């Protein structure tokens, strides 16, 4: 057993971080705030070129052939820089949808059901098609593919996250084409793990930003990070990140490696099917919580500066709400986990 990143995984992490520094610096991403086309085609093509979308596609099908463990490494970095676009959906769909593997942007939405509000599509101007995924409790049903052109979509004038444009969709949704023969549960689990990894990236980055600020900002003649009230907020935030990261990486390995799933299922007296759901649900719950709570904490640590548009922390908070709102909200995940406790 070795939970550490392998040398290859470390190289992957460094490689993707360097790539993102070059093609998606936060200042550049921010210049597209509130635009419908926030996804820059050049940056997107660079991600496709680097294999971000074909990451989970077997080498025999022309992909990179990595597992979700590597997926979590890459998506944590994407979260760190607030990379815009339907990244989680496109990468998670790629193993079952060749167009996605080629880098054609796809969205995934939860089948309507939970609330009376209309379904919202992220990045409507960027996506070619959307996959409608059965809700967690109906995972035995089929996912369907609907070309974005077939949808009746009304752009939302102003979205909460200025880097995630939205359109509201008229219901009922078009019937679409069933994605036959795919494992819907596995698809949802991939999405959940990659979304959770993105949240871990967010959770970690806001702590780093706030810690730097706390070292530099002085009040009462000393850096505010020397005050326990601030230090302890950040210590708790770091603990949340580390707990979530361990849970997310563990869930990824459990999905990747059937032997590990069997051993862990034995320890917890669960079936491997139950164990997989429990691992991904727990991982996403902790990661959603870490991202949202840490981003709020980071704003608090910045004082009035934290409430300004200029300081980027609010963008992390807003993105964390985007990711937490689908593929299992904290409330739904808690219910699912209780059923598997």
């Amino acid at each position: 057993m070795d939970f550490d990143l392998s040398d290859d995984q470390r190289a992957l992490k460094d490689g993707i971080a360097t790539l993102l520094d070059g093609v998606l610096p936060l200042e550049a991403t921010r210049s597209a705030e509130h635009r419908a086309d926030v996804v820059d085609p050049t940056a997107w093509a660079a991600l496709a070129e680097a294999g971000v979308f074909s990451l989970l596609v077997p080498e025999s099908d022309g992909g990179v052939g990595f597992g979700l463990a590597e997926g979590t490494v890459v998506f944590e970095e994407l979260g760190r820089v607030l990379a815009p676009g339907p990244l989680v959906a496109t990468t998670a769909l790629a193993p079952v949808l060749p167009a996605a593997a080629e880098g054609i942007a796809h969205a995934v939405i939860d089948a309507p059901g939970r609330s009376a509000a209309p379904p919202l599509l992220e990045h409507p101007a960027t996506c070619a098609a959307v996959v409608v995924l059965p809700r967690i409790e109906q995972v035995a049903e089929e996912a369907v593919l609907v070309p974005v052109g077939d949808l009746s979509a009304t752009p939302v004038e102003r979205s909460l996250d200025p880097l995630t444009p939205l359109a509201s969709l008229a219901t009922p949704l078009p019937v679409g084409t069933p994605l036959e023969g795919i494992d819907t549960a596995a698809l949802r689990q991939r999405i959940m793990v990659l979304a959770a990894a993105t949240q871990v990236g967010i959770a970690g980055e806001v702590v780093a930003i706030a810690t730097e600020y706390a070292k530099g900002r002085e009040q009462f003649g000393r850096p505010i990070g020397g005050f326990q009230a601030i230090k302890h907020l950040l210590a708790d935030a770091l603990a949340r990140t580390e707990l979530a990261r361990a849970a997310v990486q563990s869930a990824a390995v459990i999905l990747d490696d059937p032997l590990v799933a069997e051993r862990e299922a034995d320890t917890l007296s669960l079936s491997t099917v139950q164990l997989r759901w429990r691992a991904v649900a727990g991982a996403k719950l902790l990661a959603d919580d870490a991202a949202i709570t840490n981003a709020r904490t980071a704003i608090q640590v910045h004082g009035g500066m934290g409430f300004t548009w200029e300081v980027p922390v609010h963008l992390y908070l807003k993105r964390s709400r985007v990711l937490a709102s689908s593929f299992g909200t904290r409330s739904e995940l808690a219910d699912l986990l209780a059923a598997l406790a």
Partner: protein
Amino acid sequence: MDLRYTDAEESFRSDLRAWLAEVLPTLPAKPAATDWPGRRAYDQGWQAQLFAAGYAGVDWPVEGGGRGASPIEQLIFKEECERAGAPYVGTGFVGLLHAGPTIIAEGTLAQRERFLPPILNGDEVWCQGFSEPGSGSDLASLRTRAVRDGDHYVVSGSKIWTSHAEVADHCELLVRTGPEDSRHKGISWLIMPMDLPGIEIRPLTTIAGSTEFAELFLDEVRIPVENRVGEENDGWRVTMVTLSFERGTGFVGELLESMRLLRSLTGLAQRTGAWGDAAVRKRIGALTASFDGLWALTKRNVSEAARNGIPGVGGTVFKLAYSEQGQQLTELAMDLLDRAGLAASGLDGADGQGELPNEELVDAWIKSISLTIAAGTSQVQRNIVGERILGLPKEKS
């Protein structure tokens, strides 16, 4: 990120599982929680059985008489023991987890030969005399004084919160050998036999009503110089050596016990009808996520320890996160017990089936209150995380 166990680790696990299945049914009945001599005898008996089977000091190095198992095998050992419901280390805690490892690392040959075997085979029990009435979180301010007189130290002062002092044979004692204000630089680490003249033990009653810890009054206790471990005035460093010893597995038993408690609470909620309350289900769901996360974090700490010798960042945040979650868990237990939680002794029919005795849950709730105090308060842990990991400015000291 490879979470598989090797064949050797798997066979270590299956041998242990088979052995536990064989011996556990033969154990005597557990003594009452308040019967400390009885508990000492029970813990010694279990330790002797572990010793005979080659499982004593699984995590001790071979040169100290232990099994020299890797941190991963330690994890398996604790996992299987908890799973099988084996006894905890109990009164053997200080000897096996603190004093023994310190003597292995820093003791002389004579000290190792004298003190290690009786810890491993269960003959001798240790206690820890670090905290003082005036020195808790700020341990380096301790004032119990040791003055050299020929080949003895003459020790006077007092210690407090000394767990299991009444049933201990030896005490790992921190004393001031340097000037009064020498802090970390003037402390020595002594082995104090508990039957020396001048030691008065005054039991303290915990909020659980148990006398598990005591105050020690030391009045010119003469401790041979040969009982000093490490150099004079180097005791602070000697103490720190032990702190990294557990290598990420320190709380595994407690963690797995909490996970088992959570499962039984789910059963309790279902039997009492509390399960129909969505808020209860969501609390159980959230705790499941947290404890699974802590389990994953434990594995990460253990594999970091296997690789680098110390558990790293995760080891420091673990205690903080575990303490908080442990308290939320027992808070849920009390809420589920409802008014049955007001009875600290057994209440017939408390949960409909008598499966989960209310007194055990009440006891777990009370004990969990010390999680954020003992072995470093959560405030101090947060200081450590903030300063050593995040690099924020230090407190004045």
